[in-house]
């Protein structure tokens, strides 16, 4: 038994429409929705995609769901997951809000901060929940760090070093994913948006001190930046689709340093006064006055299921979801600002003539 078994006490399962059946749905959101369905939280009633092949692949999770190649023909639903390429999120979200659907929109929530604001405004007008698919926010480890920051238990945050990178392995369905026009950006938008949303949820919106990437007429493969908050806290970020990086977030508080390794849902390392203490971020349940045990926690994949539960609960309880357009939109605005002030990342192995041409292509002469 896990902590989510007894949640469905609030009524009939919500009817869910999944719009876009690409690799994300096939690999993560589909199985997670299947699990949420098993828990009685929701029922996937329809799948929408232009590709019959993709519909068939995702249909195996939901044999009774209707399949549509045209969104206009799709059945009514209480909640829609929008998991199409980001450029289409805004128009699809507005259309689904017109149909009185609550929304879970995959990251990045849309193509621009302006669109994000418009989406939220429309959701407010329609009285609908707009949640954004930053699934990592459902890692207990990250929630624990957020609590540490909020409580001030280790003093204020002084510095954060966040590094994420590895060779790109996502099964991108088309070359469009790698173009500025269709994909919107490279590693900063793809992985960095997660990182920035997490940082915003912890400390608020920072000022960008510096940003550099290696896009030379295309999208960035590597990037690095520096951020600063009004509290004086600073962050260094490094991202790569190219090579393996340290893959950790190191949060330096005044009295302790907490390290989270990316992808670890529950593990943290706390260093205090030179002593390292590995921590497991799990809930504990008390039985009577003397017996308690740690709940088995969901892991990486379970975060997707936890997100479905959060969105369903938010709709039923008429509250905000954990990940709102406020933090997601702020992260998107940060990416936009970074692209706007981009410098060419140092590529020290280039020949002088190559370096010159690289700057021309990057538009940063």
């Amino acid at each position, binding site marked *: 038994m896990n902590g989510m078994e007894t949640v469905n006490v609030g009524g009939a399962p919500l009817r869910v429409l999944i719009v876009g059946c690409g690799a994300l749905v096939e690999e993560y959101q589909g199985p997670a929705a299947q699990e949420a369905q098993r828990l009685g939280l929701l029922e996937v009633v329809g799948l929408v995609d232009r590709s019959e092949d993709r519909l068939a692949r995702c249909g195996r999770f939901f044999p009774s769901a209707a399949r549509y190649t045209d969104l206009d023909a799709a059945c009514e639903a209480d909640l829609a997951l929008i998991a199409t390429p980001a450029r289409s999120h805004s128009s699809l979200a507005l259309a689904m809000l017109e149909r009185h659907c609550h929304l879970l929109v995959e990251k990045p929530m849309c193509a621009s901060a302006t669109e994000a604001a418009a989406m939220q405004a429309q959701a407010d007008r329609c009285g609908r929940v707009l949640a954004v698919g930053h699934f990592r926010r459902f890692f207990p480890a990250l929630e624990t760090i957020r609590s540490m920051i909020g409580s001030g238990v280790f003093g204020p945050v002084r510095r954060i070093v966040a590094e994420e990178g590895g060779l*790109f392995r996502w099964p991108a369905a088309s070359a469009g994913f790698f173009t500025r026009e269709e994909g919107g950006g490279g590693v900063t938008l793809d992985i960095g948006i997660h990182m920035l949303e997490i940082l915003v949820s912890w400390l608020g919106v920072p000022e960008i001190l*510096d940003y550099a990437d290696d896009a030379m007429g295309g999208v960035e493969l*590597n990037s*690095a930046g520096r951020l600063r908050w009004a509290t004086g806290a600073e962050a260094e970020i490094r991202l790569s*689709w190219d*090579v393996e990086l340290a893959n950790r977030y190191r949060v330096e508080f005044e009295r302790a340093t907490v390290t989270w390794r990316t992808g670890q849902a529950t593990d943290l390392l706390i260093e205090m006064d030179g002593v390292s203490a590995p921590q497991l971020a799990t809930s504990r349940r008390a039985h009577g006055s003397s017996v308690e045990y740690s709940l088995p926690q969901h892991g990486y994949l379970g975060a997707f299921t936890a997100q479905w539960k959060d969105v369903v609960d938010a709709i039923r309880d008429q509250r905000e979801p954990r990940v709102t357009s406020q933090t997601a939109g702020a992260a998107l605005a940060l990416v936009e600002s970074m692209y706007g002030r981009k*410098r060419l*990342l140092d590529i020290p192995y280039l020949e002088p*003539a190559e*370096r010159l041409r690289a700057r021309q292509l990057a538009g940063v002469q």
Partner: protein
Amino acid sequence: MTMKVALLGGSGFVGTRLLEKWLLSGSHDVRVVVRSPGSLARMARFALPAWEQADVFDPVSLSRAIEGCDTMVHAIVGDADQIATAAQAALQACRSAGVRRLVYLSSASVHGQNPAPGTNDLSPLRDDQPAEYNNAKVRAERFLRDASGVEVCILRPGIVYGPRSQWFSGLPRALRSQQAFLVEGGQGICNHIYVDNLIHAIELGLAHPRATEGPFYVADDAALTWREFYRPVVQALGFDLSDFQVVPAAPPSPPTLRDRVMRVNRGRASQLLMPMFSRRLKDAVKAGLDRYSAAAVPNGFVLPQPRTPAADWEISQLHTCATRLPMDRAVEILGYAPPLGAAEALDRSARWLAGMWGTATPADPTASNDGRTATA
């Protein structure tokens, strides 16, 4: 002379730098052949070059993808089975598509990882070596050497290094986790070549009239010992050679059960059949193999210890290599002269890796920034 070049392996380490050089210099009209769109990531820094999706092991599919090209550069990495299949497919595809010349990246390991003194380009090759990779490269070379209808240039680089190379990319993590090692102190000779020097050799291979007289071993101007080879990179990362653990050389070892199963799994038949099995079953088999292959715990009283790094036979042979391979033929026949010295090449590689791992400034200190000051 600009030519239309089909590039196989454009997302790999050598292919990435090759493409970068050519896109920045405009020297060739390149068409990249990839197995899936996901392989375009590394080249997407630039406006995407011409590309085709094809099965590089299927001559018919590959032939369609390279139609209209003058030449092909074959820089694919793969396991032993894939090496032979890919070489055959490439040759057949070049023949049917009318591609005039194929530059094939073989490997100095055709002579083994620790060749006998006196070994050179014309030394006889054996395909019964302990390392299947070596045997596969030998067989691929034989097939290409005996082929007709396509000009074939075979290059034999040794340890290819530079940005993104396997020799350096894993080093920061290995050093931080105290898993970096040198077999017997790394006093053996490293027959290395910087990736840009290899690209220079590839360009000679594409154009030189006598390039088909290979194979040609190509290398840097110097051959350092392994410890000297690693020194600049290690220091740039804030470590020292003393942070390497010295481990003993290992004998050849037979393939494990896991190796054998994974090899079968990579076969074409397996790739067709695998989707029929549930993920749960596949995960269970994988977990079972991992458990079976893991070292047995002697008993419950044994205390957990950090993993001790251990070399396999191939690395042991490399780190204790006693022979510097000669590149006389490449120099004499092709006029090969490595454009970059090893010291400068290692320095560039080191600065790149240190920048990626935050031990150096991430931004180009020489780049102007519309009046903004570099702050990182």
